């Protein structure tokens, strides 16, 4: 058993949320730079230049790149030989979110579904936990904005529609989302499992590094085709029209029930924020 202290987790979660909100990943920056070179629309180019400048300012001034600093989504991979001392893991994560959103001057966006009363500290965090072999604790902080999350969906497709039907559905989602999720977007697709599993696969897919290829050759091919079809939509940066609507498409797949074909599309805006730490 390896021991990890409560306070260590609080500190880590707090730091990760501040970092994620202020520093855009190098892979995303690279993808936006390439997009700017490829974009044919002058307005589109201008928008992409603004995004690069915005990321620079955010990092330099240590302010959030976007005012929507998201709901706090946390992926945890906990080694089965880890023992948390000094308190409960979930409590440590909540406390880390509280502290990070306060100390980082991040906007608190969690509210009651009916009254819309703000919870005041951006908790509760949405925690996805997985038990893995080993004695390490991996924490991934993913602040998720409302604009792009609102354009996401799960569909229980008819199995007979097959791969073409899945692809049509994904493209349709992005088309209908239009300018709302702040394109250029990244599209996470979860195929298979059950209703909730497909959604988690789609969200998890968004953690992949932009520019990386899918280890499954068939899915890799599908990702490329989807990216081309999505960029052919012409939505462009901010939806003002242009060549670059998406920076990447990531698919995760698993078996499903013989009667079902769940497909989830989780749209991520260009503020593709996630930071991880291994304790």
């Amino acid at each position: 058993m390896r021991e990890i202290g409560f306070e260590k987790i609080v500190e880590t979660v707090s730091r990760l949320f501040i970092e994620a909100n202020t520093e855009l990943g190098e892979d995303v920056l690279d993808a936006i730079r390439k997009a700017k070179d490829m974009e044919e629309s002058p307005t589109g180019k201008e928008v992409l230049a603004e995004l690069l400048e915005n990321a620079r300012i955010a990092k330099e001034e240590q302010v959030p790149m976007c005012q929507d600093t998201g709901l706090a989504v946390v992926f945890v991979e906990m080694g089965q030989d880890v023992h948390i001392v000094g308190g409960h893991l979930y409590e440590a994560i909540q406390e880390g979110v509280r502290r990070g959103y306060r100390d980082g001057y991040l906007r608190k966006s969690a509210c009651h579904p009916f009254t819309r009363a703000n919870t005041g500290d951006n908790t509760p965090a949405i925690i996805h936990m997985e038990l893995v072999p080993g004695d390490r604790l991996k924490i991934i902080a993913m602040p998720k904005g409302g604009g792009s999350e609102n354009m996401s969906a799960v569909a229980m497709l008819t199995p007979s529609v097959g791969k073409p039907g899945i692809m049509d559905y994904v493209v349709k989602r992005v088309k209908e989302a239009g300018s709302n999720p702040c394109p250029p977007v990244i599209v996470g697709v979860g195929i298979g499992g059950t209703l909730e599993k497909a959604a988690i696969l789609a969200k998890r897919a968004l953690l992949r590094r932009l520019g990386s290829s899918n280890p499954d050759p068939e899915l890799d091919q599908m990702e490329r085709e989807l990216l081309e079809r999505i960029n052919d939509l012409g939505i462009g940066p901010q939806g003002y029209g242009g060549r670059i609507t998406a920076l990447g498409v990531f698919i995760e797949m698993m078996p499903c029930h013989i009667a079902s074909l769940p497909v989830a599309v989780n749209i991520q805006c260009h503020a593709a924020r996630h930071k991880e730490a291994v304790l």
Partner: protein
Amino acid sequence: MGEILRLQTPLRDEDVEALRIGQKVLLSGVVYTARDAAHRRMMDLIEAGKPLPIDIKGQVIYYVGPAPAKPGRPIGSAGPTTSYRMDVYSPKLLELGLKGMIGKGKRSKEVIDALVRYKGVYFGATGGAGALLARSVLEAEVVAYEDLGPEAIRRLVVRDLPLIVVNDVLGQDLYEEGVKRYSRQPQA
């Protein structure tokens, strides 16, 4: 995209009439912030025949719920929020003299028609460019509905806020036109 145009609020009919979709504008002057909750309260006042907390004649409303300001700063990150949630309220405000709105995302047909009828403009600010946009904000002061936190009405003084004209007095829509120009889909 052509020349960049500098505009100063309050906006006059002539200012708005000269704007066309795709035009880049640097806006300076006073701009008010409001989101759904503030709009709802203003509508209640209008329906009750009471005065609004701000005089909206010739003014511009920015749909933004800024992040908290760091010490010594007027405002935190301040990019636009999605505008369609304000669609039900905007025609009435335009009728009462509002000249401009700043946000992101498509507006309803009712809003686009109201822009034509009452001579107004809808600007897009780059969604997610909150740190960049905040640089153009020189002053920020809560003028109404403080209890709404980030959703309170703030009076901002901005200099060279970078915007794009999305809907103009001719009823044109940059989202429609732009996508038409770049789509490679036969059915689009």
